[in-house]
């Protein structure tokens, strides 16, 4: 007997693929932002499915803060090679060197915010008219109001109070010269959906997401990975712990969680039982109540 229903993962997949195909049909020079985190990995997998047997018809771009987990870079390069996709890497260090960005100082210094400068410069320089991002609406309250097709003015800014209405499956990418769009194909996915899908599709993941022993220290109640460019406060000390990353970003602002999860099934159980959001240990969001909105207005991912 034929079945005419699909489960939530397949429905989300179909929606995301629809959105990615719309991007390629509506824009001349799209690019996919790729950080090496689970959301961008899933987004790339969806793009691969959307166009098979055609190669993914746009390049990947990584805005590299220089403060990476090594595994992420290795994973990124392998993926680009395996799928024959062009990879563009833009360095925050270059923006600092040429005076476009100014390095933050102090203990909580991070290059997270500086990425916006590098990103907007890259979009302008390479004339991209659309950047696909792995942002999800459940991640953060400002993102809950984000469109799939999000319009950016010629300064790369987001105007949350004046967004274009988005109805049915009708996505409007019309724009003037110099403006661009950010498109978020996995807007409707939750952290749980992402992990369930990774399991279902058997997608290879960076080892950072699974339990491993690492030098860490505790800051304001969150565990942080230790790295040469991180400054410690006097009362903080580095210890070895069994941890895993719940999100992967710049080391300076990505916390790790104490965890023994070493399979996708373990991770799914952990996510199901968790009482803290995945961004709960993201120092970049804790700067103020509207930290994410402020960064997004400026042109952040």
């Amino acid at each position, binding site marked *: 007997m034929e079945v005419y229903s699909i489960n939530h993962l397949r429905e989300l997949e179909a929606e995301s693929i629809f959105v990615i195909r719309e991007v390629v049909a509506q824009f001349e020079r799209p690019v996919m932002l790729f950080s090496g985190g689970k959301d961008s990995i899933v987004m790339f997998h969806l793009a691969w499915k959307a166009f098979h047997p055609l190669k993914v018809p746009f390049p990947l771009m990584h805005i590299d803060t220089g403060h990476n987990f090594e595994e992420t870079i290795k994973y990124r390069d392998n993926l680009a090679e395996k799928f024959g996709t062009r990879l563009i890497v833009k360095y925050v260090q270059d923006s600092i060197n040429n005076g476009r960005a100014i390095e933050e100082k102090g203990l909580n210094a991070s290059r997270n915010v500086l990425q916006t400068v590098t990103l907007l410069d890259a979009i302008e320089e390479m004339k991209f008219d659309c950047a696909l991002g792995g942002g999800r*609406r459940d991640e953060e309250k400002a993102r809950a109001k984000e469109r799939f097709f999000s319009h950016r003015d010629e300064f790369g800014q987001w105007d949350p109070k004046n967004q274009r209405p988005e109805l049915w499956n009708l996505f409007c990418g019309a724009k003037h010269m110099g403006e661009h769009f950010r498109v978020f194909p996995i807007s409707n996915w939750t952290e749980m959906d992402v992990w369930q899908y990774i399991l279902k599709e058997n997608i290879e993941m960076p080892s950072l997401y699974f339990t491993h022993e690492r030098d860490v220290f505790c800051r304001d109640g969150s565990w942080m990975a230790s790295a040469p460019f991180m400054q410690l406060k006097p009362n903080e000390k580095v210890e070895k712990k069994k941890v895993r990353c719940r999100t992967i970003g710049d080391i300076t602002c990505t916390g790790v969680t104490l965890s023994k999860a070493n399979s996708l099934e373990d991770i799914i159980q952990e996510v199901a039982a968790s009482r803290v959001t995945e961004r709960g240990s993201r120092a970049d969001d804790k700067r103020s109540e509207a930290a994410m909105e402020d960064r997004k207005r400026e042109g952040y991912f």
Partner: protein
Amino acid sequence: MSGKEHGYLDMELLRFTTAGSVDDGKSTLIGRLLYDSKAIFEDQMEALEQASISRGGKEVNLALLTDGLRAEREQGITIDVAYRYFATPKRKFIIADTPGHIQYTRNMVTGASTANAAVILVDARNGVIEQTRRHAYIAALLNIPHILVCVNKMDLVDFSEEVFERIKEDFVDVASRLDNQDIHFLPISAKLGDNVVDPSNNMSWYKGDTFLGLLEALPVGQDWNLKDPRFPVQYVIRPITDEYHDYRGYAGRVASGVFRVGQKVAILPGGLKTTIEAIDFAGKSLDYAFPPQSVTIRLTDEIDVSRGSMIVDADNQPQQSQEIDLMVCWLNEKPLVVRGKYQLKHNSNELRCIVTEVKYKVNINTTEEIHDDLSVGLNQIARITIKTTKPLFFDPYKKNRDTGSLILIDEGTNNVVGAGMIL
């Protein structure tokens, strides 16, 4: 990819919209649902407590959870549609939470456009008021398959069955003038939790499902149109590699109906007939495809097919016309211009149109037609006629939400200014 998959990986997806104003307890209801289903986390709760206290509140203000923008928090109002997510072991839910004030009809329409169900809150003390009629009208206009009428604050009317029954009758009276689909009524107290997740001890006279129980039980699988095969072509896949030298696939999402390998189809525009050779998805071959699947269709004959074309069943074709009657909800401060030209988007088709006539406006509080004032401004709903530069292939919106909907775009600002439902 079709068929059943097991365990927690096998949930259905239900999208619902909620509309309500500041005082009807909508935020409390959603907050409770999210909290009881563990979709609110400790760090969010902490942030919420801090934010509530810093604004001088004594209790945790759950509205701050959905009002994510700085301006919303400062003004204590909801500006835009907020999307929220939660899951139970049975279903994954997407809530499009929209403000219910008349100024925000635009947002209600937006939230309703993708919803399987609409939740309409009625304050038990006030009964069916203007706002209730407005919400019911929009839910009917947007053809939302299921309506849940929650009579809230039952604790403030002594959990009276009589009050509930009277409100139910009043609503049925409103709904009978619309053509609403599947309507459910339930008495709740969002504040105390009666009939939200757990059955109420205070209202033993109510024998129906709780709010969550209903959300889990609504038959969403039947909401898709499986009768009329429509496949708008989004993109043509031509790899031109050695391995796939002659591959030519038409990528798109099944809007409605079922497509099978071997099926006789027609290609619009033109109407040339051919047969489906294969249905591909990510390296696999499917025997059939149905909504809302995204697939790639290959045809036996080489025909001119491009973005904007539509693959349809040879014996079941949509209407074609350049003159179209529709209901429009106006979404922009700049009013509709009669004889004005607009960019139009319908499925994967983009073309231009001219608004030839405004037939009447609708008073959305009374659902009465207005014939003496035909100016159509922001948040107003009207019946109009448009003429397009080339024929549109469509079905009436009531039969097909995908091929029956369109948007109008201002050619100067590129803003989406009108949401159209074809009659």
